[in-house]
């Protein structure tokens, strides 16, 4: 009686109409001991399917170490721009050290005169050498009249 049922299930099985539980039943039946000889070949089939579901991967999965600081990466640019902006605002080029000054206007006048004289003196010294340039003037005047 069971055999008839199994044969019926097999027919259904090959039509792809069995349910998962019916297929489990077939697997149990064909991995058992008492299988009639004309159904012997299906023993291999269901035996194989049962055996295959026990095949496992031998290599362990390795995951790359999570980088805990990775979430900071987008903020590096922000930090850099903030640094630049602050730098621009807080940099004051006029912070050169104050030079000494004269309190007394008389002394100041005196000193200024001294400095200007010094400049004028060097100026005149330099201008002495330019006398030679007048030669050019003379020559041109001669030619042009």
């Amino acid at each position: 009686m069971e055999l008839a049922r199994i044969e019926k299930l097999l027919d259904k099985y090959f039509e792809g109409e069995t349910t998962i539980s019916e297929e489990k039943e077939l697997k149990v039946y064909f991995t058992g001991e008492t299988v009639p000889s004309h159904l012997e070949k299906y023993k291999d089939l269901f035996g194989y399917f049962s055996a295959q579901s026990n095949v496992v991967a031998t290599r362990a999965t390795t995951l790359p170490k999570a980088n805990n600081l990775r979430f900071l990466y987008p903020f590096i640019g922000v930090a850099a721009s903030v640094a630049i902006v602050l730098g621009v605002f807080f940099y004051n080029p006029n912070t050169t050290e104050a030079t000494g000054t004269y309190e007394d206007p008389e002394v100041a006048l005196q000193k200024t005169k001294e400095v200007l004289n010094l400049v004028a003196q060097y100026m005149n010294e330099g201008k002495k050498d330019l006398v030679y340039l007048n030669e050019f003037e003379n020559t041109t005047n001669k030619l042009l009249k």
Partner: protein
Amino acid sequence: MKESAFIALTNGFKDKLFRFAKRLLVSQEEAEDATQEVLLKLWKNKGKIGEYKNIEAFAMTMTKNYCYDKLKAKENNNLKIVHSNYKDERPSLQRQVEAKDSVSWVGKILDTLPEQQRMIIQLRDIEEYDNAEIAKMLDINESAVRAAISRGRKKIREELTKKHNYGVG
């Protein structure tokens, strides 16, 4: 998500991914690579894991796509002169041992089926997913799944009957 939680989550279906990849790629090594690759991709997108309704089915689909890419790459490499052309043609020890076991005929027959039938038989008869799940994983409709199951099973039966009648391979 913590690493340990991720491992615990994926351990539930990791071997299924592996068996599925092995069914398609045949090679043990490549199947291990495929499994690792798929899990890595999942790990990288772990932030979105909560969004997927069925992470297992999603991983299966990823595995299928990965294997398809691999198979395609292999086809493209056919014209290359590679050392493997000259490899030892004798079956490996493992193969020899397997061949003695008549159960392994089923595996060999299975490997001759078209890719889609092979995948579907794997998912249905070995992993015991129902047709709706398989249809979703492979992105085809349910009647196509049913048709492929029936066709694949009949083909296996046919080959098995031949083997049993002649007792040779």
